[in-house]
């Protein structure tokens, strides 16, 4: 099936045929009109008008003026006019068409002295006399109106040309739009997919179109569905594994404390170490579960009004409590009264992960600065640390799960883990955006932007 092939072929072909046809029709129509005017619209009067003009010019400007007048007239009129002297030569020296010669010769003979319209124009009374004594006859050659004369006079030809250009332009505009609209949709869907939204489909937006592009759209949708299914099952597997890991971990926690209890409640360094690692593992599993739940679209998203100020304050306080052993602190440097619609748990985990991450990387003795403000009627929260920052090439990837940005310390600490991946997912689900940048004066700065009121969430992603 080559529907599109035929569409393009026919559109170009038809548009060419159309253009040529319209040009021909317009030209011949005009030709007809001119001939009809010459024949019907009182040719005598027209002739007399021109004659008067010529006589006036001959009287005032002589031969030279008459030549200029005739040149202008010829340029304007489709019908050729000749000014013939007594010898039958044209004033501008143009050769006479043979049929006109024949006519003139016939009229000069006594046989042709009567009847015909052009004849009276040849009478001596119609002569144009110049001061030098020469006299001329004004002779129109109606047979001389032809296609070349019409095409050579743009003023005559402008309107049909314009109409044709406009019509064929419209046709081509429609064709281009028709061809490119689905391509634009495909492109948008591809971009959305690259951005992580696998729920995009193109075919429903094409309105029953059936051609090569529609085939491509079908294939695209098929691919998108397959990838979505793969992603979902991968996330579900991850979720299932995490869930199953919880049970042995729960037993481990109880066994550990049971052992401690049997030791008489005494806590050795080793016990504490096991407890700490268990808690880390537990946290990781929790993060995996949270991420898989968000990515696979299972679970529900609440829609409540969340007070951002209170949320940030509590998180900063909690984070300071967690890192109390160090001389690092988180502070709110700028605040604004703002409320956003969304899921408080998801928003909490988003901000919590970003602040926690910053607190982990900021250098000892420095602070993590949290600033909230309204910009372009959206909430903008910036979290900046005074750590080493990351290379520009890794700025986008920092939101990928378990990405390692490269330095040794990072490898030891297990990379960025899942925190920022969770934060990004949660922010995206709230119709916001999150970006990382190195601050001008060192350190990493994460910027989160969220719609302030009635944040529209993508439907279809379920969560």
């Amino acid at each position, binding site marked *: 099936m080559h529907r599109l092939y035929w569409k393009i072929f026919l559109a170009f072909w038809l548009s060419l045929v159309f253009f040529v046809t319209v040009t021909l029709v317009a030209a011949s129509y005009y030709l007809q009109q001119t001939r009809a005017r010459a024949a019907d619209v009182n040719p005598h009067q027209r002739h007399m008008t021109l004659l008067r003009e010529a006589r006036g010019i001959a009287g005032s400007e002589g031969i030279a003026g008459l030549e200029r007048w005739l040149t202008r007239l010829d340029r304007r009129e489709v019908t050729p006019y000749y000014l013939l002297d007594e010898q039958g030569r044209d004033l501008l020296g143009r050769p006479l068409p043979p049929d006109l010669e024949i006519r003139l010769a016939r009229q000069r003979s006594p046989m042709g002295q009567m009847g015909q319209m052009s004849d009276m124009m040849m009478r001596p009374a119609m002569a144009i006399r110049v001061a030098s004594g020469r006299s001329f006859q004004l002779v129109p050659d109606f047979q001389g109106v032809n296609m070349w004369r019409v095409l050579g006079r743009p003023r005559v030809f402008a309107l049909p040309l314009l109409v044709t250009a406009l019509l064929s332009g419209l046709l081509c505009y429609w064709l281009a739009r028709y061809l490119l609209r689905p391509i634009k949709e495909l492109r948008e869907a591809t971009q959305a997919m690259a951005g992580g939204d696998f729920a995009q489909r193109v075919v429903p937006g094409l309105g029953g179109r059936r051609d090569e592009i529609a085939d491509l759209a079908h294939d695209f949708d098929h691919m998108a569905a397959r990838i979505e299914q793969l992603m979902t099952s991968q996330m579900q597997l991850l979720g299932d594994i995490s*869930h199953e890991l*919880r*049970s042995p*971990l*729960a*037993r*481990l*926690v*109880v*066994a550990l*404390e*049971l052992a401690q*209890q*049997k030791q008489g409640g005494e806590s050795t360094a080793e016990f504490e170490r096991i407890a700490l690692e268990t808690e880390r593992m*537990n946290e990781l599993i*929790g993060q995996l*579960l*949270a991420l898989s*739940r968000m990515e696979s679209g299972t*679970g*529900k998203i609440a829609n409540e009004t969340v*007070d951002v*100020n*209170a949320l940030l304050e*509590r*998180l900063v306080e*909690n984070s300071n409590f967690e890192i109390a052993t160090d001389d690092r602190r988180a502070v709110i440097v700028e605040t604004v009264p703002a409320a956003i619609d969304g899921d*408080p*748990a998801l928003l*909490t985990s988003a901000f*919590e992960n970003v602040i926690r991450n910053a607190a982990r990387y900021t250098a000892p003795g420095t602070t993590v600065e949290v600033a909230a403000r309204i910009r372009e009627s959206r909430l903008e929260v910036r979290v900046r640390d005074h750590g080493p920052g990351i290379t520009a090439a890794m700025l986008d990837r920092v939101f990928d799960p378990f990405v390692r940005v490269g330095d040794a310390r990072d490898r030891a600490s297990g990379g960025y883990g899942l925190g920022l991946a969770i934060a990004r997912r949660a922010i995206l689900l709230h119709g916001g955006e999150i970006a990382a940048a190195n601050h001008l004066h060192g350190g990493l700065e994460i910027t989160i932007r969220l719609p302030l009121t009635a944040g529209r969430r993508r439907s279809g992603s379920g969560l």
Partner: protein
Amino acid sequence: MHSLLLADDDTELCDMLRQYLEAEDFAVTAVHDGEAALAEARSGRHELAVLDIMMPRMSGLDVLRELRRESQLPVLILTARGDDVDSIVGLELGADDYLPKPASPRVLVARIRALLRRATASVPAEATAPVHITLGDLDIHTGARSVELNGSPVPMTSTEYSLLEYLARGAGRVIDKEELSQQVLGRKLEAYDRGIDMHVSNLRRKLGPLPGGEERIKTVRGVGYQYVLDED
């Protein structure tokens, strides 16, 4: 010695938890499915039930729903960490508190003790003085830990009762959630903690608005709650 009901389908976990709890001077009955849990809870032999949500035959939430039809036995539910829906539904159904799994036995014991303290009538000395609080149409008997609305008793869990009593004692004052969590639930308010909110919404449902049509327990956004004094 307090008698506890422990319902969790993980038998090995139950065994270890029982050992731990028995060492802490509790008598523990362990069951491993929902139906057995409901039967035990109804028997009246236990002072408190610890219910896991994920159980065969009958989920912990279903057990709780059935149990609350007839009993105000203090119930602590174990939820999967990160699954806030379960904890919210559980509190809505009348659970007294929740603990995310995997739970540290130490924390579990602390929660159980706090719940038992609330449930027993032996309130701290300073609170024993007023035996009867009357607020408009509401009568609270602190001795019997019972509540009457327009003379008819309103059944409520011990946590709901404690919360109502605390709010009523401070009627007209805005009490922040941190204080309520500390005083009523006996624990620190967590980062995303719906405990107090859910108990308050249960109280609202059971007590309805004030006779004047005004809300009985007002939410002060970002701060906490206030028992509204009727102006009539």
